[in-house]
């Protein structure tokens, strides 16, 4: 499991996540909801090792401590971050990129096999095949980039995936496709920690557990009924 133990995250001296603990089980979906500015994105970036975020506390991945590792080492241990706003790398061939990323993680496949897998997943996510003709994320809309993040996760098959608002800026049909993709990912065995604003998305995921974060702290924990409560009443009644 991915275990977050007493995690505090600071950005430029400001504490944005405070004493947060939770665990993500393999093959399960954990949803993390919370209002804007509650520290969700900071938490995920810090977990992935972003140098801008100082993380205190212990993070263990299947028993191995990873919070002192460089980002690439965390990735090689099987941690994946699906970015909220994935950046473009012009000219970087997506197929060759994933092929090499797999190799970095000690797996191997032929370029052809990767291309076939990508083409299959592109169809599942209703993405154009021309995505493969451009540089990574180049010329793609925000929604398309989010889908491509999930596509990467489906092929990289990480042990744990941190998905930062995989649903923002998506139309209703895309929302369903993305929810299905996350469920496929968890069925593949990946433990998913999904940050979202939308009860609709959260419900579609049929999560195993739901956490609510406010001002950097977990303020509620439950299951699907918590999503309904948030939709009906908002976050107001849940004070840190």
């Amino acid at each position, binding site marked *: 499991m991915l275990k977050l133990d007493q995690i505090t995250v600071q950005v430029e001296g400001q504490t944005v996540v405070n004493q947060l603990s939770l665990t993500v089980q393999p093959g399960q979906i954990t949803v993390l909801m919370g209002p804007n500015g509650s520290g969700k994105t900071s938490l995920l970036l810090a977990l*992935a*090792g*972003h*140098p*801008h975020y100082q993380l205190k506390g212990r993070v263990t991945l299947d028993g191995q401590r990873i919070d002192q590792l*460089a*980002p*690439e080492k*965390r*990735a*090689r241990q099987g941690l*994946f*971050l699906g*970015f909220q706003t*994935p*950046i473009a*790398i*012009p*000219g*970087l*061939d997506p197929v060759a*990129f994933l092929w*090499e*990323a797999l190799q*970095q*993680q000690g797996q191997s496949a032929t370029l052809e096999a990767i291309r076939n897998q990508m083409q299959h997943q592109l169809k599942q996510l209703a993405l154009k095949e021309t995505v493969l003709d451009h*540089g*990574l994320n180049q010329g793609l809309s925000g929604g398309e980039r989010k889908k491509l993040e999930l596509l*990467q996760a489906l092929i*990289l098959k990480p042990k744990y995936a941190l998905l930062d608002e995989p649903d923002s800026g998506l139309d209703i049909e895309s929302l369903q496709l993305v929810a299905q993709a996350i469920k496929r990912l968890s069925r593949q065995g990946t433990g998913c920690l999904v940050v979202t604003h939308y009860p609709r998305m959260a419900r579609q995921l049929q999560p195993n557990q739901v956490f609510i974060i406010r001002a950097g702290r977990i303020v509620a924990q439950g299951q699907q009924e918590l999503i309904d409560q948030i939709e009906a009443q908002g976050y107001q009644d849940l004070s840190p």
Partner: protein
Amino acid sequence: MNKTIKTTGLTHQTVVSISRHKSEPKWMLQRRLQALKLFQARALPTWGADLSQLDFSQFRYYRPAPTKPQTRWQDLPPKIRTTFEKLGLPQAEQEALAGIKAQYDSEIIYSSLKQRLARKGVVFVSMEEGVQQYPQLVRQYFGRLVPPQDNKFAALNTAVWSGGSFIYVPPKVKVAIPLQAYFRINSPHFGQFERTLIIADEGSFLHYIEGCTAPTYSSASLHAAVVEIFVKPRARVRYTTIQNWSTNVYNLVTKRAWVEEEAVMEWVDGNLGSKVTMKYPCCILAGPKAHGEMLSLALASHQQHQDTGAKMIHLAPQTSSQIVAKSIAKDGGRTSYRGLVKIAPRAEGARSQISCDALILDPQSRSDTYPLNQIETAKAIVEHEATVSQISQDQLFYLTSRGFDEMRARALIVAGFIQPLVKQLPLEYAVELNRLIELEMEGAVG
């Protein structure tokens, strides 16, 4: 062997000796001597890169090759064969190449030309052979586009040129496989002055590739080449260069193409290495609907200055041009884009697109853009965009979060940056260029 041409420095006698050694007709000697006077009279350019350390007296202007011209690979001396093997030549020669003109110091010592091309009437010979075997064509076209009056280094080249290729492609003949030439400087203080003349007759097609590598040595070397290309109506010529001079070479090259009606000229130009490069390939779009393209990459590292660009001269209606110039500066290197787009009053409906992208890898490095547009008709469209970028922390984090270490992440970002040029190259060159860039990048993690 004549003693004069074995020593350094340039005099009337040097030029006479070169010409005599090549058994040239009198007209060529006269052109050389006239050019020498122009060279001596002309000052160094005061714009562009710093040439103040150039000392013309320290260069050797001619050295005959150690053997006579060869036509068969196995006849080459072992040492030279090894050198070429390191460049990956034999295999390429066996399989894909139409013919190789490999220049060892100043003379062609190895050449082979597939009979199939010869039967189509394609001429692919050394410039010396061109002078001897096709005197009328050479006399008519040599120096017409780049006369010795053009600039100091064109004058120098005209005076002391040695080696290079002469190519003629007859009407409607399409040369399906690229013609390739490899150049290599490998003796200290030795200036290399190859001269290339290409005539692509109506409706023909040719892709010419020159790749240059040079071993490292300590004293300054000079490379001042001239390339002249005549693209007749509806013909298309692509000229690809990948240069990796050692970091003490002054690379001062004049390249120019005359592009007639509905003809297409494409320059693909990769400049790595050298101490100073000044190179601005030019298309003179002389016929209606002629099209010129320039796709270039410059990489400047420690104590290097790549001053490169392109010139597009639109003389006729409906002509079009495109310039894509990419540069990478690192470890205190400097890249400059210097370009000219001129649209003459007659060139109504002309279009030109210029795009300059500079990537600066550290605060010590520098990149500048000096575009000059002279538009003399209202009925023309010129678009210019320039970007200067650095490798962003967001890009680095994105890639490291996927398991790439920082060095590899940087290399991938740089490889992506040059991809538009790389994908235009034949596979073996693309692989080689990517490898060169990776090697360059290995020291660039700061």
